[in-house]
């Protein structure tokens, strides 16, 4: 890693995270408990405690480009065990939202899966599992994802071939639309 220049600390970024998450990253005293308990530490490029430290020093680019914030599954282990009572998982959540807003996505597959999930939701009101999987496979280019599971799932009749469309799906899509309007209005 290059030397990080700490002469100027990106206060704006820290304040933004503070505001959007409602959490104070300066409560963290770097004990490392979050890293110790996190089931995903091995898959992270930066362990959680380092994300917290990077946040304390306002390292916006490193954080938003990190894979860690996408790999986090919000399992809440860090939040539950943090001795400083920081909702670490919520901070990770917030960082992911900011990264998405700034179009910085280091884990394209995860984001794509989330996007497919939400578009399924916006479209039908509920999740159409088969459609979600197929859509993901096509768009990600990983055509064979979970193809091995196909027979199992299909023979067991666990998955529907057609989406369940709810009556109020326009109401659900309206929530998405209003949200988009609001975002546009706020100039994000």
């Amino acid at each position, binding site marked *: 890693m290059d030397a990080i220049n700490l002469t100027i600390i990106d206060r704006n970024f820290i304040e933004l995270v503070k505001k*959007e998450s409602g959490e104070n990253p300066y409560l963290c005293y770097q004990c490392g408990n979050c890293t110790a308990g996190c089931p995903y530490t091995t*898959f992270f490029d930066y362990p959680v405690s380092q994300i917290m430290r990077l946040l304390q020093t306002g390292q916006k680019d490193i954080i938003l480009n990190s894979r860690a914030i996408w790999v986090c*599954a919000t399992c*809440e*282990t860090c939040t*539950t065990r943090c001795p400083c009572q920081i909702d670490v998982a919520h901070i990770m959540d917030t960082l992911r939202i900011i990264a998405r807003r700034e179009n910085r996505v280091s884990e394209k597959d995860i984001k794509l899966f989330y996007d497919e999930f939400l578009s399924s939701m916006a479209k039908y009101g509920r999740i159409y599992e088969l459609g979600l999987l197929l859509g993901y496979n096509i768009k*990600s280019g990983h055509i064979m994802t979970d193809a091995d599971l196909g027979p199992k799932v299909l023979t067991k009749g666990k998955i529907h071939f057609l989406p369940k469309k709810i*009556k109020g799906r326009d109401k659900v899509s309206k929530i*998405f639309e209003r*949200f988009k309007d609001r975002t546009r209005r706020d100039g994000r």
Partner: protein
Amino acid sequence: MADREYAYYSGCSLEGTAVEYDISVRRVMEALGIRLSEPEDWSCCGSTPAHTVDHLLAAALAARNLTIIEKMGFNTVITPCPSCMMAFKKAHHRMKEDIRFKDEVNSLLDEPYNLNVQSKSALQIIIEDIGLEKVKERVTHVMPDLKVAPYYGCILNRPPEIAQFDDPENPLSMDKIFTAIGVEVCDFAFKVECCGAAYGVPKRDMVNELTYKILSMAVDCGANCVAVACPLCQQNLDLRQQQVNIRKNTSFNIPVLYFSQIMGLAYGYSPEEMVIDKLVVNPDSLISSRITLSQWNEMKAREAEASKAKKKEKKNIEKIEEET
């Protein structure tokens, strides 16, 4: 005859991959005198994906359902899927803590949510509202071969401030239920370890690594099956068990049942009624030894008799020895 009535939000998974969870929960609740009322035209809770977009959007998607339930006149909704439950609880919690956030969420909705609905897991309802006494009363069958590793998953009881139920590190609600229905529970250390959740699709390898650890621990602690309360956990442990075997060169063959299926079997429902056949790893060998409670009691009585007789005999021998 229903003692109580609750709203019941099954969620998308329970309509698809976890249909056996849905059916078994409904049947068990019925057996316990609980009537369930499904909100009309419910929509997806938003789950984790919505949380990656915006807190507001996530809360709104969840709150739409809470509004529907609120209008039905219920103040409690049973939410078997922990992901849906947490989406509801978080939306409710944040709206309650921050009135401005509440207003913003409601501005995205057709009809406002007024914070009158508590979402609870089926486990919480069973422990808090029904009580273990009743859980025990209803038992008709015993499964002496079952050794269960109770796996709660990561978000059923966490974070504790929001979950407001059971212990976040060593939850015991499932343990207590199993003990009450006469099923042996193993001391399972990975009760709350994360299974990889929704990453099954985009990050299969990662999930396989995590489930490998959980399955290993289950086998190590002497369990012959895993009990779960979450559709994602079930999928990752059961459906993907073969993937783990291939990746880690293991030969796990450990059935993963919903806790409600185990309860149903103890309540005398047939394996078909509990939709056991939807499970990928077949548990038949474990549940085929199921006997009725009266048979079990007879058996126990006979055993007690035998051991008493043995003791008596031993005493007699001692006596004779002493005399001689």
